[in-house]
């Protein structure tokens, strides 16, 4: 079980409380597809991903980004049982979606950058530290049921 200090929990909660899940989710997923274009391989049915503008404006990208970050919110509600929370999703990503777990790490790092751009100086080094730990734990949990 991952140990979270009171400070880490507070840093995570205070950022999350101010996040627009829809906006941040959409932005994080769009940036993933733009910065690491090979990740588009999982979204061949998303329509037009031919340019950064197309990706950012793509309604399927926005919707899926919101879905992904909403799911992330479940981890934050259940910091003490992230592995359990993502058990089914982990199996899904392995068995049905066939997603290389490296992609979870890439998305996690992008999410941290998106948060930094939204929160500016408030996204302190301590804040980044807590969130890098969180995205790492989430990535690990999502990879846990792979076989």
């Amino acid at each position, binding site marked *: 079980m991952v140990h979270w200090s009171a400070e880490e929990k507070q840093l995570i909660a205070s950022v999350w409380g101010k996040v627009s899940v829809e906006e941040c989710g959409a932005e994080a997923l*769009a*940036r993933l597809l*733009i*910065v690491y274009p090979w990740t588009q391989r999982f979204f061949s049915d998303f329509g037009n991903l031919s340019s*950064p503008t197309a*990706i*950012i404006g793509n309604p399927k990208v926005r919707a899926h980004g919101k879905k992904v970050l909403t799911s992330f919110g479940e981890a934050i509600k259940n910091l003490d049982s992230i592995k359990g929370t993502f058990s089914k999703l982990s199996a899904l990503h392995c068995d049905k979606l066939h997603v290389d777990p490296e992609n979870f790490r890439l998305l996690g*790092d992008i999410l*941290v*950058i*998106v948060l*930094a*751009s*939204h*929160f*500016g*100086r408030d*996204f302190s*080094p*301590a804040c*980044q*530290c807590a969130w*890098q*730990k969180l995205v790492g734990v989430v990535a690990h949990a999502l990879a846990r049921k792979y076989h």
Partner: protein
Amino acid sequence: MVLHANDKTNVKAVFGKIGGQAEELGAETLERMFAAYPQTKTYFPHFDLAKGSAQVKGHGKKVAAALVEAANHVDDIAGALSKLSDLHAQKLRVDPVNFKLLGQCFLVVVASRHPALLTPEVHASLDKFLCAVGTVLTAKYR
């Protein structure tokens, strides 16, 4: 990972805007890296790593200067950083995985201080540029 014309343009534009604060950005990058990835501190047992450390500031200045140099010679990063590449291979031998961690923290610093500058396209170019720098610095490792 090849830098295309638009990547080079984006990199030069970014560094044109932030190059003046390079020292500060370098110091904050290191501060964030030591906080978020404590294993990176193992390369600095001889440093005072407390907040505000003059040594971290000084080293941040060096790191930032190297990035600026690479950006100014983006057509030949290998040439511009050749001596630094030798140093990392022969003396410093920083494990290659750490350059990605430094890169992540540099992007976070730029994002937090200049969010408008870090559009998705610029983000992509800067990420590629930082990868290229890491590749050059580890190129002579073996």
